[in-house]
């Protein structure tokens, strides 16, 4: 992901000094991802062509290390798939204003406990960082909570 906007990441509340970027992972993507899973808690991969077998291997590695593997793009056998649709911006008008907030609808679909597809909408703003409580709040009103391992489970 060489075109990732780090400034936007910082505004969303990420500590940029704790991020490492590998813009060109080269031909041996699997070796690089495996090495990163050994050291980091969250690894995001933008892979547009990854084989079934390789994907399973990396998922298993992530599970054994207790790391979260986030794939930007399709990933065979993913636990949870999140897609964004219906994005609407506000704040910008005809010749004046600034882009201010982004209303998005997130659709989640996955395996096991998350098998039932569900959707929720929330607003993304620049200045207010995304925190775990704000996430919980977003999912609360649709009677679901988000747990640490990013799998959505239902609350009674």
């Amino acid at each position, binding site marked *: 992901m060489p*075109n990732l906007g780090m*400034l936007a990441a910082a505004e969303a509340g990420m500590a*940029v000094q704790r991020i490492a970027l590998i*813009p060109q992972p080269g031909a041996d993507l699997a070796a*690089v991802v495996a090495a*990163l899973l050994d050291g980091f808690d969250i690894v995001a991969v933008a892979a547009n062509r990854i084989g079934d077998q390789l994907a399973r291997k990396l998922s298993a590695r992530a599970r054994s290390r207790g790391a979260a593997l986030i794939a930007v793009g399709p990933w065979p056998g993913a636990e949870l798939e999140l897609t964004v649709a*219906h994005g609407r911006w506000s704040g910008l008008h005809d*010749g004046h204003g600034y*882009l201010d907030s982004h209303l*998005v609808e997130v659709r989640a679909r996955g395996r096991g406990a998350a098998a039932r597809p569900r959707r929720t909408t929330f607003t993304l703003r620049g200045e207010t960082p995304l925190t775990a409580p704000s996430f919980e709040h977003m999912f609360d009103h649709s009677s679901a909570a988000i747990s640490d391992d990013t799998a959505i489970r239902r609350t009674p």
Partner: protein
Amino acid sequence: MTRLLVLWCPDWPVVAAGMAAGLSADAPAVVVSANQVVCANAQARREGVRQGLRRREAQGRCPDLAVLPTDLDRDARLFEPVAAAVEELAVGVEVVAPGVVAVPARGPSGYFGSEESAAERVIDQVATRTGAESQVGVADGLFAATLAAHRGLVVPPGESARFLAPLDIRELADRPDLVDLLRRLGIYTLGAFAALSHNDVTSRFGADAGYAHRLASGLEQRPPSRRRPPVDLSVTLSPDPPIDRVDAAAFIARTLGEKLHNLLASHGLACTRLAIHASTANGEELTRLWRCADPLTPSGISDRVRWQLDGWLRSPTRPSAGITLLRLEPEETVDGHALQLGLWQGGNDEQTSRASRAMIHVQGLLGQEGVLTPTLTGGRSPSDQVTLTPWGDEQTPTTSPDLPWPGRLPSPSPATIPTQRVPATVLDRDGGEVGVTGRFTLTSQPDEVAVAGSTRRVIAWAGPWPADERWWEKDNGRRRARLQVLLAEQSEVDNQDALLLVRENEKWSVEGIYD
């Protein structure tokens, strides 16, 4: 105390920078860092340029002054031939700093008859081999010998304290705070400082002042009870494949420095004198001793390995094959708690070290430039506000993000920033291109935007926000205007696309995509 012969090249940073830039040696030149003169040569000093002067003021005093950047690596690399020239005459050469080498005086003075003739021979040798000007001083102890070299003197044995006594207290140049304090207390010479009781100085001003007091009294900086480390503290590495490039050497240097430092730290030691041996497949060898007043940190060790290999691999007498063996031997160590800060700095918790191991692993796969860490810096465009540095290099923001940057757009910032220029076309209702006038107003209202072949209708827009940057620099000035546009969705479930467009040189391009 060992009698040392010190060779000092006056104004070495300027000499090295001039050599690198191809300037003649008799042109006035200075080396500046952070807009302050760090070092000036004799021609510049004659025009009144002094160390610590602001760059502009220095240029004002001497209009044809050559201003050169500071670069410690360059100084060390170009100094390597000088150290090699001294080594041909005397054994046991120690590089104290780029510009200063020390050798035990006993060998050469015995061979050449007297210390004076040894000094002459060394100066001649350096001048014929490298063309560098130098001065030599001989005295007991490194501090006295270095000051003797500044004056080109031979101080008789046992006379170091007498030689130092009348000198200005400001010769303790690397402790400006202490010097300032002592001068305010009315102590103007090294002799007056040495006359104080050592215990009083240490208890009142701390251990570091105690070391300075030892120097002023003509003694070695640290008490002579240094331990000679057992042999097994050396670190050996056989690089495979052999190193023949400078960047590979730098990479090896870093791991080696860490390794040695951790080994020493586990014995509770830190290194003050380090020998670096390198040998090649064809049997060529280069050994250098590095002496350092303060215990070496991991990065200090790796810097010295890099300087030495860098100098060797780029010299005209470069080895005929790659380096196959590297050995670091700590020659002199002090107790590690002298280096408490260095040992614990950088938050050595388990997670950090796990992450750094992973990054070193990836750097091993992809090269040092493969792993980048971001730092937030100041700027106007979203890409200016982030600097990426290879992991392990020092992260120094060039500009502060806290300064006001007029023309910077408020948050949220675009989450996707194209790495290559993506041309765009902005059309008005009549199908003509929308432009920006010299006074930063739009020529007409935008109605459609075409990016990469697909044309979409504009439902909202704002701007243009002008950014007129560095207009005071002839070649670096940039005039840009930014525009936020919101493009209509294609269907009910489709996302609205928000783009940040920028117009420069009469052309629109996509600077960021809000998603």
